């Protein structure tokens, strides 16, 4: 059914010894879709006197460490003494003029069961009825001692239920049901919470209590006009692994106030894009960025925006993301996201 196809030629193949190829599984395949822009790549020369020329491949060494899931030993390559002394912007990971970036897809999984389809509901009701009809008679003697209070209560309950089912055919009134209800709620202090929360009603996109049946994804807003909404991301600095970058960036951009778990040490999506010709990142010119998305789950807490890199955030479902995020970005990213 699913044909695992080689990715389009537009995908940049990073040499194996430097990065594990995550281009295998069908789902990951679809995220490998690249839309490289047709703008001509400028000849970039180093502007800042302190920097090594970035596009000079003999000088830059790519050191993305994407470790195998089954590896307990992180195969971090050690930096030489000279390299450790380099200032921060010299430790940026670059490949072919593209900045290597770790993106974070922070998800809040569904909290409650999804609503069944009307047909599903009817099917289940039908099967329940069939079960009741075909079931062996309930062994009262096995479960209740003869003459006990529990046995008496059970028999009364049965009688009530019998009357209820008959009344549904219009034979008798359901007066006893209310008495029944009072008795039962007196025993237990359990109240069933509503499936629709106040956050749903108010359509509060910052709340984590919204859309309990769906998966919510965190998107953040950058202080710019175009392409402002995106997943949180940050450039990889030597000698960090992708996972380390992801945790650090999430802490910096979204605050330390969340209980988060990253799913393994491996990215599950990839997106390559080019910067506008006049764009400079940290006083350096790059061709663009290569983003490796790491999946993470949030269990508690909330985002705290740092107001410098990030000015706003939202927890949105896959469909709602279309309204926030640029169409190109959504196209590249949508296949990583869950339908439910």
């Amino acid at each position, binding site marked *: 059914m699913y044909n695992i196809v080689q990715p389009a030629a537009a995908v940049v193949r990073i040499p194996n010894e430097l990065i594990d190829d995550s281009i295998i599984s069908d789902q990951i395949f679809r995220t490998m879709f690249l839309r490289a822009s047709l703008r001509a790549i400028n000849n970039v020369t180093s502007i800042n006197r302190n920097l090594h020329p970035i596009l000079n491949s003999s000088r830059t060494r790519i050191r993305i460490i994407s470790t195998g899931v089954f590896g307990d030993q992180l195969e971090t390559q050690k930096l030489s003494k000279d390299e450790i002394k380099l200032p921060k912007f010299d430790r940026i990971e670059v490949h072919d003029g593209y900045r290597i970036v770790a993106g974070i897809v922070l998800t809040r999984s569904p909290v409650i069961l999804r609503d069944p389809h009307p047909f599903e509901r009817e099917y289940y009701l039908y*099967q329940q009825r069939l079960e009741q009809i075909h079931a062996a008679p309930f062994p009262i003697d096995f479960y209740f001692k003869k003459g006990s209070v529990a046995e008496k209560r059970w028999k009364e309950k049965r009688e009530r239920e019998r009357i209820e089912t008959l009344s549904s055919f219009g034979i008798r009134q359901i007066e006893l049901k209310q008495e029944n209800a009072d008795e039962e709620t007196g025993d237990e202090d359990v109240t069933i919470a509503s499936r629709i929360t106040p956050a749903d009603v108010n359509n509060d996109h910052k709340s984590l209590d919204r859309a309990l049946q769906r998966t919510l994804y965190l998107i953040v807003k950058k202080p710019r006009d175009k392409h402002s909404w995106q997943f949180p991301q940050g450039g990889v600095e030597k000698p960090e692994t992708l996972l380390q970058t992801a945790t650090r960036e999430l802490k910096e951009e979204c605050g330390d106030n969340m209980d988060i778990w990253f799913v*393994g040490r491996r990215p599950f999506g990839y997106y390559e894009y080019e910067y506008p010709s006049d764009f400079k990142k940290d006083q350096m010119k790059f061709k663009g960025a290569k983003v490796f998305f790491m999946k993470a789950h949030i269990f508690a807490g909330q985002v705290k925006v740092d107001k410098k890199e990030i000015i706003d955030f939202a927890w949105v479902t896959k469909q709602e993301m279309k309204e926030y995020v640029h169409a190109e970005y959504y196209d590249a990213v949508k296949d990583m996201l869950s339908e439910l």
Partner: protein
Amino acid sequence: KQFHLYKHFHTFSVAHYEPHHSHIPQKPANLPNSLDFYPGRSSMLRMEEYHHSTLADDLMILTYRDPEAEQKFIDKRKKKYLPLRKSVLTMDTNPYAKNRPRPKPRGNKNVGPVPPRQSHRTAPELVKIVVHCMMKQSLLSKQHLLSGIMALQCITSERPTIVYSRTDVSRWKLRKGMPIGCKVHIQGPPMYTFLDKLTEIVLPRLREWQGVSISSGDQNGNITMGFPPSALSLFPDIESNYDMFPMMTGFHVVFHTTAYTDYEGRALLSGFQIPFTPGKKINRTF
């Protein structure tokens, strides 16, 4: 001389025809008016929905192997379960071997599964759970089997079958063919409800339980755990009428998964909130 014309004729009462290879035998329809009717699922299953919505995606990421590691893993498994004839080693490329069954392995070794190429469909899944109860008391009297059978039936909602001994052990006065225990295989809805009960109610209440042993597993992703007799009383089905079970026995629970390594099986089960003891270092298994 008489010439026996009918010497080579065989007579059958009924003409026997081999079914055509394209004939797919079908089970008789499961109709409510038949005696063997078994109703379908009557509700949504919480654990199953969780697996399909959240767990499976995460497991796919966690159990992913890059192409070199995958090839290494498959080669190692193929080497472990060697075929009978050398020609089978070239089965993938040999066109004459295509669509033919794999021959038996060489020597007296066990047959083992060779994992397929990974895809979104090969993420580990829970297939069935086997609950097995061995009762030594049944050697004294067969009546003691009943409590075990009833307990398993209450826990799993399926009728258990009796397990008969396969060997003679004179020390324990055990002879071949004696009923020694009971087991029940559960799949689908009863399996997920049993798993739900375990993880929500029973496991949290077990006393001095550190988790499932980290070394548990049959090297092919199937994990087993054992319960003491006190665990039976923690099940809500038994807790409610505790007096009807005079003899509490311990039992084993085997989780059968589609995983091909113990690591993946453990990943699946821990996703279902079954804790494992952090213990000794586990080597890479692939």
